[in-house]
């Protein structure tokens, strides 16, 4: 398949269908509407399921139902809508259901606006649902990677029986870039646990997150946690740029990381040895990878389109080895590379 | 009865609903001009025939129109 120019939202929807998504549930919200609209058309044409739910809460619970019944399923939304989905995400995690949630985030809090932002890092990685649960969070930096990560999300969801979120931003949703889609069928795995109404298997399946007694619930939490530790050990994805000899480490994710990459080039042109570490998985977070670079760098700077969210994970990773600084713009304002250059320069030469 | 119809031209979006509902057919959109917000504004071709019925103003979504009655 050759490259085609495609809008991020449309590419995400197409990638999901190629990855074997058979059921989509959504509710209109900008800037992700094209995903819902594409699914409305192509799920019908490919004999899949499309339902425009009455709300985001309903949509995620439809996902819970479809995933519990053993089918590859997905929902998508944007910040305020993802906020409403938190309840259902917690239930999916508690009942160990594979589901993909695409979050095309926008400016907040509240209604905020529909411009690109990264102020939903905490919402994605910590979530607002109740309980000791984790969501696998992937962060693409462009349209091509968004499609690859949606595919990977379905793989991870099935492999670990867990909700996986693809955290894009309004830029990726609305932007067009050349894309080459992977149209190979994604391997399906057996789901002997699914409540698909087939007692010929010889036993009953129950999808549930209720554990009335303390011991079984504690055991359940240990089972879940073992899964999260396995991700941290095996599933971290990270991209390095000019890090080998870097004496200043920049950390940035998503589309804004591309601007930080330009800033690295500008800094290098001025003789400042900057490097960029880009987390592609926000949970599990590349803590070891960041920590490993600390001995060679003067400081670490986290650049985000937020008031400072990922920087907290960066601080935990650095754990006091070197100073950690933050630079951010918010509300839909996207920083320019020269702002990052200036921020780095302002911190050079030790703590002032 | 005679009337006078005036338009706040720079908030007119050229939707044409006033034109549609004018019983005297004296309103039109000026396709030779674009106002400051990018539309062909409505205007009155023939004030003499305005009867001050205010149908145009009733149907204007943007409250662009003022209608006056001229007492003769």
């Amino acid at each position, binding site marked *: 398949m050759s490259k085609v120019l495609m809008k991020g939202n449309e590419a995400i929807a197409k990638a999901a269908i190629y990855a074997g998504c058979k059921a989509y549930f959504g509710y209109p919200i*900008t800037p992700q509407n094209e995903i819902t609209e594409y699914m409305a058309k192509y799920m019908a044409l490919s004999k899949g399921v499309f339902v425009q739910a009455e709300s985001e809460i309903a949509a995620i619970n439809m996902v819970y139902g479809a995933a519990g019944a053993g089918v590859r399923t997905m929902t998508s939304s944007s910040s305020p809508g993802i906020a409403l989905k938190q309840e259902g995400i917690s239930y999916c995690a508690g009942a160990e259901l594979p589901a993909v949630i695409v979050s095309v985030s926008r400016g907040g809090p509240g209604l905020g606006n*529909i411009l690109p932002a990264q102020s939903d890092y905490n919402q994605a990685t910590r979530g607002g649902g109740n309980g000791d649960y984790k969501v696998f969070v992937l962060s693409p930096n462009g349209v091509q990677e968004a499609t690859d990560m949606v595919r990977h999300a379905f793989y991870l969801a099935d492999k670990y029986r867990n909700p996986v979120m693809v955290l894009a931003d309004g830029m990726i949703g609305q932007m067009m*870039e050349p894309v080459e889609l992977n149209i190979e069928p994604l391997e399906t795995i057996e789901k002997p646990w699914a409540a698909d109404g087939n007692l010929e298997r010889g036993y009953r399946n129950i999808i549930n997150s209720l554990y009335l007694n303390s011991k079984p619930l504690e055991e359940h939490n240990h089972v879940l946690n073992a899964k999260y530790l396995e991700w941290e050990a095996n599933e971290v994805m990270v991209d390095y740029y000019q890090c080998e000899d870097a004496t200043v480490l920049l950390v940035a994710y998503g589309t804004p990381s591309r601007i930080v990459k330009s800033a690295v080039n500008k800094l290098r042109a001025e003789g400042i040895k900057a490097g960029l570490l880009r987390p592609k998985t926000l949970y599990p977070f590349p803590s070891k990878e960041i920590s490993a670079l600390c001995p060679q760098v003067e400081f670490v700077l986290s650049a985000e389109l937020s008031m400072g969210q990922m920087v907290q994970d960066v601080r935990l990773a650095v754990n006091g080895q070197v100073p950690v600084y933050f630079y951010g713009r918010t509300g839909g304002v996207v920083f320019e*590379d020269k702002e990052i250059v200036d921020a780095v320069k302002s911190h050079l030469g030790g703590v002032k | 009865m005679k009337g006078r119809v005036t338009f706040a031209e720079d908030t007119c979006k050229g939707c044409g609903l006033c034109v549609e509902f004018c019983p005297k057919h004296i309103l039109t959109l000026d396709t030779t001009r674009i106002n400051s917000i990018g539309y062909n504004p409505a205007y009155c071709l023939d004030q003499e025939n305005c009867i001050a019925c205010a149908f145009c103003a009733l149907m204007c979504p943007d409250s662009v129109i003022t209608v006056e009655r001229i007492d003769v």
Partner: protein
Amino acid sequence: MKKIKLVCAGFGGQGILTIGQMIAMMAMQKGLAVSWIPSYGPEMRGGTANCNVVIDEQDVGSPIIADGITHLLVMNQPALDKFISKMDKDGVVIINQSLIKDPKIPSGLTLIGVDSYQIAQDVGNIKVQNMAALGCLAKALGLFNQAEGLSVIEDKFKGKDQTLVQLNQAAFSQAFNSQS
């Protein structure tokens, strides 16, 4: 090649976003890295519309153009007023002469005019004004030849009436060739 930071701007309905998309398609077919992003907001027809197109050899950094515009295509006066201060010092401004009668451009910038209305009328349909603007822009970018433009138009209107394709191509060609 020097990185191209192109902004296309005008009223909604002038085909601005399509012009940007078609430039992006031409760049993609040449094997260049490219991104296209519209200004997006609440749905309302009319008003202003603009899009950013970044073209580079290897990969595109920021898809959003904050300043240093190398090429600006403006279809009306408010669009020109909005973006002129964000130009690169030796940038190129392409204006729609049909609606911008007396452009004020800082010295150092190159000004190119395209009478898109006239060209569209010449080829027989005023609806193809944006293709005239596209032809002029494609030439001004200095990256593309006429055949590359025509082939993208062919692709874009695939499955549509062939006379429509030819009409669009005619407007493109006339504008492309009218520029020396």
